């Protein structure tokens, strides 16, 4: 659907960064070299949980090219603990290590290879401690504590206080309840209960973590591949006791994020290396090291759903156990989101959800595209298909019956649903069923709803120059999602200029105004709106200037494209500026600050819904599943850039394909055994289905510019569940653990019961009745 009134937005214009990227000229952090720059490499812990008895650095300092070595005992004078939610993360291990792979020492040398080769000359003596490697052992009575101390909360912790300000291995607990779930289940006509496992996964980005820090008398400048530069700035300012204006974060193009580069990662450590050596220092990790830096929270979910005789959902109850790893990172917020998102886009009168994020001696978990939603959509959407079979009705019809309508509340206290999911579902079903189902194939649909957008604080500045060109100065980071292009489009649309006349300046915290983050699918909605409002602010100023120059009332001026009309003469913005200032090249600044107020007061800013359909073929001899067909609906209000909105959906669904069929980080004991791209399997082009339909629902029902709202996660969330449901529809094999590897599918087909890791059942206690917190 095209919306005729637009000249630039809603058109798939060439990407702002397209030519630079396809010609290899785009600058990423790893391309940057500063004068006098040294290189750091990290020595990592070989054990999961241990006291550090001693670190001997005498030998390493004698190695060729080595400038300095930094250990946990060299951090006097700074506050080494960071974390936007919980300040539990030391920038290097201090006194003890909490996961295998944790950085214990940083060697700084004249070149990267010398730093790397010198690492083995650092002598570390450990005293091993019993490790807790899974949620069950972390919650067991008398379990070893990862953190013997309690911590301060961080400044960007969200709306819940983390539990890790209290002793214990529970990092966060969330309780959500309305109605009377217990009573609903007692009287329900149909109820179904089950347990599901969503695996540990790595959000693979082509560019691993990389930072350059330059600590000098003027302050600290850091170049980093960071999604959220302003939150990194906050952590760095606190660590080094610097004023915000002394910490400068510069983010060039980011080579993929998917949540893995949200919040602070290696920046404090890189900065500490520079702080110690007073040299600019670059730290770049390999993919293998990146896999030891962040992952998603793997999740064990016990869920039950109840329906009445007519198939109306009457209750949902869930206990979600998130394996958060050694440090809180963003898991306290993931826990909140997982609890909110297990409900889905359905009308459910009785709900009780408990979610726990639990510390273990494994790689710290944090944001991952979907942000808790993938973990909980898999169990719920699987269970809806199971319930449909119990009720003897079609899974599509069961969903349709229970989907909330636009304007209806799905979560008490949050914004009512702002999407037409029934309409989306019809689009998917129509596309999916346009031909008979081949023998041996299975089909399924899935839905999800995520409270998205995070906090709406975003600000933007628009410069209008004396030659009529425009600069948009804003803090959204360009990580491939296309936000630079979207902002350029909005400014060109509003200012009435050709898109080539608009330049995007981002992101440098010394120049660009505050933006909370680039994540939670928020940039088009929040920053897009800030850019639009900044343009309108500039236009209002220009109109007053024109009135001043023309000695008339602003009300007598008629707004036109790229200027105003007065007495039948068109004045371009540059004409107004020239007349007003009397000099060439003068410019004005339009600005906008968004915050949680007015129509942005109610959260979430928007519901990011997902609605997908898949068709799979199953080799029943080997258990191998192949995705034959994929249908996504980008319910984005208005696609500012339709091709990029579709690209987001294809990318998101492809991640869903990976999580559904291939991806799982595997621990054997303390050791992550497949933390490399040979053994950890991300989807390849050959895995993509032969037929893909990327549909857009443009109902202009978002709170962003022109009725737009965010996309990019929605088409990920239901895909793993849809794959499991399509497998069931093809073979009657139900698998409740992802990924759906051939062996697991074969096991289900041949009646071998796939074990769930550390099953709830093993303790013999039903989690709903057990107070895990005690």
């Amino acid at each position, binding site marked *: 659907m095209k919306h005729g009134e637009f000249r630039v937005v809603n058109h798939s214009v060439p990407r702002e960064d397209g030519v630079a990227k396809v010609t290899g000229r785009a600058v990423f952090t790893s391309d940057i070299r500063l004068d006098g720059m040294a290189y750091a490499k990290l020595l990592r812990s070989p054990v999961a949980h241990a006291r550090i008895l001693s670190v001997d650095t005498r030998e390493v300092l004698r190695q060729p090219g080595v400038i300095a070595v930094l250990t946990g005992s060299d951090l006097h004078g700074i506050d080494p603990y960071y974390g936007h939610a919980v300040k539990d993360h030391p920038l290097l291990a201090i006194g003890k290590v909490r996961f295998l792979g944790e950085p214990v020492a940083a060697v700084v040398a004249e070149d990267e*290879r010398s730093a790397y080769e010198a690492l083995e000359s650092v002598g570390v003596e450990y005293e091993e401690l019993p490790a807790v490697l899974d949620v069950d052992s972390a919650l067991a009575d008398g379990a070893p504590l990862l953190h013997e101390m309690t911590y301060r909360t961080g400044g960007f912790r969200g709306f819940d206080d983390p539990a890790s300000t209290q002793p214990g291995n529970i990092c966060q607990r969330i309780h959500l309840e309305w109605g009377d779930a217990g009573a609903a289940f007692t009287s329900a006509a149909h109820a179904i209960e089950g347990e599901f496992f969503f695996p540990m996964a790595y959000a693979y980005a082509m560019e691993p973590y990389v930072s350059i820090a330059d600590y000098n008398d003027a302050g600290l400048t850091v170049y980093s591949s960071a999604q959220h530069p302003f939150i990194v700035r906050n952590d760095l300012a606190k660590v080094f006791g610097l004023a915000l204006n002394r910490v400068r974060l510069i983010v060039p193009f980011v080579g993929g994020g998917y949540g893995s580069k949200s919040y602070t990662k290696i920046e404090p450590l890189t900065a500490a290396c520079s702080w110690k050596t007073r040299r600019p220092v670059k730290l770049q990790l390999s993919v293998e090291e990146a896999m030891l830096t962040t992952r998603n929270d793997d999740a064990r979910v016990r869920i039950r759903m109840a329906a009445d005789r007519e198939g109306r959902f009457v209750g949902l109850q869930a206990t979600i156990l998130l394996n958060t790893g050694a440090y809180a990172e963003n898991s306290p917020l993931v826990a909140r989101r997982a609890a909110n998102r297990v409900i889905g886009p359905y009308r459910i009168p009785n709900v009780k959800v408990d979610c726990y994020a639990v510390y273990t001696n494994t790689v710290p978990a944090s944001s991952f595209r979907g942000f808790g939603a993938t973990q909980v959509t898999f169990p719920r959407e699987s269970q809806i298909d199971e319930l449909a079979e119990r009720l003897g009705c079609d899974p599509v019809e069961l969903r349709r019956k229970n989907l909330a309508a636009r304007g209806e509340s799905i979560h008490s206290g949050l914004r009512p649903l702002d999407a037409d999911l029934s309409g989306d579902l019809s689009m998917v079903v129509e596309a999916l069923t346009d031909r008979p189902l081949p023998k041996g194939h299975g089909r399924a649909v899935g839905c999800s709803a995520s409270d998205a957008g995070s906090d709406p604080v975003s600000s933007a500045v628009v410069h209008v120059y004396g030659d009529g060109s425009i600069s948009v100065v804003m803090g959204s980071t360009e990580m491939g999602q296309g936000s630079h292009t979207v902002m350029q489009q909005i400014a060109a649309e509003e200012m009435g200029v050709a898109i080539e006349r608009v330049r995007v300046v981002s992101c440098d915290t010394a120049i660009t105004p505050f933006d909370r983050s680039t994540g939670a699918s928020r940039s088009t909605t929040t920053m897009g709106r800030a850019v639009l409002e900044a343009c309108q602010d500039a236009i209002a100023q220009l109109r007053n200037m024109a009135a001043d120059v023309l000695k008339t009332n602003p009300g007598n001026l008629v707004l036109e494209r790229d200027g105003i009309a007065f007495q039948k003469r068109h004045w371009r913005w540059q004409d107004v500026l020239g007349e007003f200032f009397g000099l060439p090249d003068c410019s004005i600044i339009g600005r906008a600050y968004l915050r949680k107020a007015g129509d942005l007061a109610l959260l979430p800013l928007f519901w990011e819904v997902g609605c997908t359909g898949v068709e799979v073929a199953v080799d029943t001899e*080997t258990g*191998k599943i192949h995705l034959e067909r994929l249908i996504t609906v980008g319910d984005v209000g208005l696609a500012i850039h339709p091709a990029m909105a579709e690209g987001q959906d294809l990318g998101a669904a492809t991640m869903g394909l990976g999580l559904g069929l291939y991806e799982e980080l595997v621990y054997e004991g303390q050791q992550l055994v497949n933390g*490399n791209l*040979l053994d950890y*399997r991300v989807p390849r082009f050959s895995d993509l289905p032969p037929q893909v339909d990327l549909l857009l629902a443009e109902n202009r029902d978002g709170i962003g510019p022109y009725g737009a709202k965010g996309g990019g996660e929605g088409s990920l969330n239901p895909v793993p569940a849809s794959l499991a449901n399509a497998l069931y529809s093809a073979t009657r094999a139900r698998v409740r653990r992802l990924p759906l590897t*051939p*062996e697991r599918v074969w096991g289900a087909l041949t009646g071998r019961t796939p074990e769930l890791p550390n099953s709830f059942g093993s303790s013999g206690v039903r989690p709903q009745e057990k107070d895990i917190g005690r």
Partner: protein
Amino acid sequence: MMLLRRFEIHQPSNVAEAVQMGAHFGEQASLYAGGTELLLAMKHDVLRYKHLIDVKVIPGLEAIELRDGMIRVGATATHRSIERSALLRSRLPVFTKMESLVANVRVRNTGTLGGNLCFAEPHSDPATLLLVLGASVAVEGPQGRREILMDDFFAGPYETRLAPNEMMTAIQIPLPSGRWRSAYVKFQVHERPMLGLALALETTEDGETFSRARVAVGCVSPCPQRSAAAESLLTGPRPEIERNLPLAAEALADSAELIDDQQGSAEYKRHLIRVFLRRAFVKALEGS
């Protein structure tokens, strides 16, 4: 970016010089014939060498030719050149088809057959097929030249029976007569295959009896493995063989020392051998 430790590269001008260099540097050196596995292992710091002897530069060592009824593939022929060889496509198509399934096109462009076999990675595709093609390898060392049958070549995972400082110069495959039917099938989810299975059957003139059979399975055990018991079960009249396939698969699985690993459980691998022996059988006899 994974870093390599510092090393020196040496470029011999002939095989004798390469052997000499190997003897000179001893355990500090490795032959380097493509590096798709060696350099990866070095980047992971699993292997460390101060010296690499680049045998790819030795002239003529990459030749693919037919000599006295034998296909002779030079040790540094790349997978890609084998895949695209007109000679092999017409005379030994099962080999080119197998090569076209090796890893990905970048690896095939760089990796060499000799390098693949000498690295002795348990997931090697060529090794499994060469076992049933009755291949042997030509080697040269300080003591002179000799031949090693593929059946005797692997000593264990990442281990061959090459003597210290010996170097593989060619792979020799006897040209099968027109009565041989063969197939290579593989099953793959991860980057490395989970199973490779090669089958070669010699038929009688009427095509109704198999007078000889060779079968090998790779990836599922420390080394690719043939099984005499399975081969004997696959020899005889066709209907009997079709009935015997499950038994032959069991025999093959028994000989393979199946292990549980990240790729799958031993039980599942046993099942896959059953499935893929049948598929290889069907494929080998396609059109005959």
